[in-house]
């Protein structure tokens, strides 16, 4: 009996953390962009979708050439995809958001929704509405840990996610450019007076956020095996929820929020049943927005002085 409970418990926690690390990767871009330009980038989830499709094409061509793929090839594709989605993120900011930098917030928000539709239906035009089968799937044994099942692909993906977040954390908290990024979040005008080219830092933030979302997209393809043009929609909303739970604008908040949301979902669906997953998520979102809109860590981010 005890074993059954600990086994279940471990499984729920593990599943929650696994899904949560995807949410965290996507939430980071959401949160960082919000932090520096106070834009809810509703197109951010679609970058995740683009990541899947870019990797779909890249892996497809590699397999066409070599007949097969492997983990090192997947990692290479992951890297190239991150650079490409990062570039697309920069382009979107440059073309769609920057001209509206001083416009009312609603105008930018509507533009973001427009960008989202453009990406979704652009991909639909090219690949069609039906889901595509991802050309390479991570496979591997499952091992039993504390009575729960943990698969090798899950471990591989979690390690990649953790590494990416660790590098990001170093960059934001320790490097000069990361410091400039945090400064803009605190006080953009004062940051200008430090000689920071704010446009360049904003571009860089879009690059990093979009690269991470692209990475999550590739990993989702390699894990779940099926991708479609609307797959970014739900994850976008969930990443937003994760960002809110953790405290939007806060780097650690996005990571924490992703994991917490993963866990909440895991336990919530265990109790309520899988069909309640999304309902449960958005109930959490509404709950947090009304009770603690600053999120778990949000209070630490002091708004302007």
């Amino acid at each position, binding site marked *: 009996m005890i074993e059954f409970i600990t086994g279940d418990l471990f499984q729920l926690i593990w599943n929650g953390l696994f899904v949560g690390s995807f949410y965290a990767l996507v939430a980071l871009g959401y949160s960082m962009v919000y932090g520096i330009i106070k834009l809810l980038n509703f197109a951010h989830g679609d970058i995740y979708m683009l990541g899947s499709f870019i990797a779909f094409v890249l892996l497809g061509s590699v397999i066409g050439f070599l007949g097969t793929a492997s983990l090192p090839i997947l990692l290479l594709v992951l890297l190239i995809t991150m650079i490409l989605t990062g570039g697309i993120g920069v382009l979107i900011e440059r073309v769609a958001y920057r001209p509206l930098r001083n416009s009312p917030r609603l105008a930018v928000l509507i533009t973001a929704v427009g960008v989202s539709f453009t990406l979704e239906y652009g991909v639909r035009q090219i690949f069609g509405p039906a889901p595509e089968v991802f050309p390479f799937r991570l496979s591997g044994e499952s091992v039993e840990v504390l009575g729960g099942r943990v698969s090798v692909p899950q471990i591989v993906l979690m390690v990649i996610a953790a590494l990416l977040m660790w590098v990001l954390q170093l960059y934001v908290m320790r490097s000069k450019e990361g410091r400039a990024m945090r400064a803009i979040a605190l006080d953009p005008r004062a940051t200008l007076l430090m000689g*920071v080219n704010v446009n360049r830092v904003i571009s860089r933030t879009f690059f990093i956020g979009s690269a991470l979302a692209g990475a999550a997209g590739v990993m989702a393809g390699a894990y779940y095996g099926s991708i479609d043009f609307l797959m970014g929609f739900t994850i976008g909303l969930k990443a937003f929820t994760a960002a809110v739970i953790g405290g939007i604008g806060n780097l650690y908040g996005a990571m924490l929020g992703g994991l917490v949301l993963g866990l909440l979902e895991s336990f919530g669906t265990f109790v309520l049943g899988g069909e309640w997953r999304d309902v449960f998520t958005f109930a959490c979102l509404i709950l947090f927005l009304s009770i603690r809109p600053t999120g778990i860590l949000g209070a*630490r981010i002091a708004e302007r002085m």
Partner: protein
Amino acid sequence: MSALVLADVDLYYHRVQALDRLSIDVQENEIVALLGNNGAGKTSTLSMISGLVRPNAGSVTWRGQDLAKLQPWDIVAAGLLHIPEGRRIFSTMTVHENLLIGGYLVKDQKLIRQRADEAYALMPRLAERRSQQGGTLSGGEQQMLALGRALVGGPKLLLLDEPSMGLAPLVVKQVMQIIEHVRRNGTTVLLVEQNARAALRIADRAYVIEGGSVAMSGTADELAADPRVIEAYLGA
């Protein structure tokens, strides 16, 4: 030689005129004070020099270079550092990080460290609070930090907006001493103040601004002795 020259500058915020044919100049290594009441246009003048707002007419030149065409970061790169009204310390960053970001455009890491150490030596209170969050400092300490942050950037011209605001007389004195020290080390200073008494004590020359134009100007001693200045700004 004039280092900074503003000639017949007009500045509008939409329909509101903030500066009206304003002309001032600052010589190399001078301390020039800019005095005036609330809304006179002092902050607007500094914001325009540092490129945060653009003049609608007239010219702003630094060592012969037209500043109105440059981006704010290019103006900082040219050595003009602006310490804004209210200090604008990065509240959740440590004191040390605040100093480091002042050296954002300085390539030489050793130079940044050296200047930060100089700032600590000049303002020992900052050294004691090195790893404390900027937002937790007192007003006087924040003003010191804002000064230190600008000094790490290696200013050729320091633009100060009401550094004495909200500070106790003793702290005002300390801040003014630091400004004098900075000038002795070769920096030119444009000092905006409502505390005319403190500013005129360290300034070489001063301008009194009213309604966005120069109402009076002269050496600090002349102005300090001028009955109109005494009446309106020295509160005697």
